[in-house]
């Protein structure tokens, strides 16, 4: 329990540090927002009035605390370009990106775990070799390349889905999820291959240890040793990988979204980078950071659940 509290405290400190770092670097680089919003032709009086209204004349730390407070309340400022609250620009898009990342994560597990377990159990067999070679190849295919090939093969040739005909989750949740299947496959493939390889390696390493031999000597069969003894220990390195995967899938979905015309945060984040629309970039990055740091906390807690020794330290 102390471990969980300690990790939660570390997480909050990390979040504060990340938010301070991001806010200050964006403030230092972004120049004067009032000039950005009114244009260079604005009179000094109007600029000054807007600066006062936006609170830009306060000290940096004061502005940081104010921004953080409003970010926590779900209102991280106003876009320079669209003149709309950032929350309304990003709010509807974040669930889309999250859904894509989570669906890819589910697919990664669904394919990676059975493949890893099977190849570990029958290590050295013909199928094991074939899967391991395939793995090596799949790991080398970047998701956007896989995405284009999938979109062409399953969309244009086989007509299993229509690329570009995105359905909003507000219209129909099942059809929304249905549209995400193929993008998720593109995103999940290399991860699933990595997972299978990692799990296979971890199980094989555990299988050489003394406790595995002892388990056999007590009359367990292969499945009994594998599922009853090896898997729990082999799962620890896999857990770290899964946590990082979820974070990377989130970043990867930014890339895949643009291929399949999915209106997640990718398009607005990229156009904001092009327009130097800093409030939007800052908010989007900060939301992703919160998500990633929360995943890390979850992984740490799961670690302690699986390996109670950690809590005692």
């Amino acid at each position, binding site marked *: 329990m102390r471990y969980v509290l300690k990790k939660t405290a570390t997480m909050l400190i990390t979040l504060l540090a990340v938010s301070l770092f991001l806010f200050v670097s964006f403030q230092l*680089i972004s120049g004067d927002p009032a000039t950005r919003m009114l244009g260079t032709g604005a009179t000094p009086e109007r600029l000054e009035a807007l600066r006062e209204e936006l609170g830009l004349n306060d000290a940096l730390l004061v502005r940081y605390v104010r921004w953080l407070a409003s970010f926590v309340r779900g209102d991280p400022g106003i876009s320079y370009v669209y003149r709309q609250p950032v929350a309304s620009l990003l709010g509807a898009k974040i669930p889309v990106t999250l859904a894509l990342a989570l669906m890819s994560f589910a697919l990664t597990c669904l394919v990676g775990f059975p493949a890893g377990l099977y190849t570990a159990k029958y*290590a050295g067999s013909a199928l094991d070799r074939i899967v*391991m070679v395939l793995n090596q190849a799949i790991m*080398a295919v*970047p998701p956007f390349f896989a995405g284009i090939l999938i979109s*062409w093969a399953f969309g244009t040739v086989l007509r299993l889905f229509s690329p570009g005909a995105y359905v909003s989750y507000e219209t129909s949740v099942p059809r929304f999820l249905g549209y995400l299947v193929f993008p998720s496959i593109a995103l999940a493939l290399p991860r699933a291959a990595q997972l299978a390889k990692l799990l296979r390696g971890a199980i*094989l390493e555990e299988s050489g240890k003394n406790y595995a031999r002892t388990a056999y000597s007590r009359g367990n069969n292969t499945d009994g040793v594998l599922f009853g003894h090896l898997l729990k220990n082999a799962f620890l390195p896999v857990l770290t990988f899964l946590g990082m995967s979820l974070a990377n899938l989130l970043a990867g979905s930014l*890339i895949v979204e643009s291929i399949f015309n999915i209106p997640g945060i990718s398009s607005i984040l990229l156009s904001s*980078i092009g327009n130097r629309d800093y409030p939007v970039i800052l908010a989007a990055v900060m939301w992703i950071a919160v998500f990633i*740091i929360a995943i890390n906390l979850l992984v740490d807690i799961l670690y302690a659940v699986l390996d109670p020794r950690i809590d005692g330290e």
Partner: protein
Amino acid sequence: MRMKQTRRNPLAFIDTLPNPKLFRMGALITAAIVLLVLIGLVWMPYEPTAMSADQMQGISASHLLGTDKMGRDILSRVMYGSRITLVVALGTMVIGAGLGVLIGAATGFYGGMADEIVMRIMDGLFAFPNVLLALVVVSLLGSSTVHMIWALGIAFIPSFTRVVRSEYIRCKHLDYVKNARLQGASDARVIFVHILPNVSGVLLSNLMIGFNNAVLAEAGLSFLGIGSQPPYASLGQMISDAQAYFFEVPTAVLGPGLVIVLLVLSFSLMGEGLRSAAKELD
């Protein structure tokens, strides 16, 4: 007494590796791509940015991989784009591995409070996907190849720091280090002359993995239009531009795509060849 000089095959070391077959396969593919890039330095079939009226041509004798929507020769653009990818990946490794080794060596060797603080920062940095970190840097500094190399380089520091640090913690209490100390070796000498060579094996396999991740990150970022700016070719950008007419000119997507796949595959094959765990793959 002078040692007897014998001429040795410089590639003989391959046979001593855990898996020479895989390493040779990977090295061969890498050599082919490097050759393509080196040829591109002195000669390319066409200027990679030169547009022509021959738009969206298929494979022909004058355009081996066809032309894109603006009539630019795809082979020349692949050659140029591969160069950018290699430069970014190598630059990323120089920055990431260079700083990573220095920080890892210092924190692992000295430990203490500074080690704690630096490693917490590294943990925070490590948690962030490298693509996201590069996006932040580019949005702050503007889009260019150099900014991308720095962004990715910094993103790769923690992975090297972690490995090198744990190796230094393991090595610093070993007998050979004590021995060197007794002979009066300075800290710097112990760190760089005595311990570093013993870390090189671990470092090498991490470089292979890191290089691949850098190639994939560069490809993904340039696909999003970040990094090397048009009209100059980058592999990701080419794929992004050509996906709309994939059906008409498949080579415009497949050409740059296959270079990325082969480059990553070749390095992971070499990495497998170096791995001591012979139970992997064979």
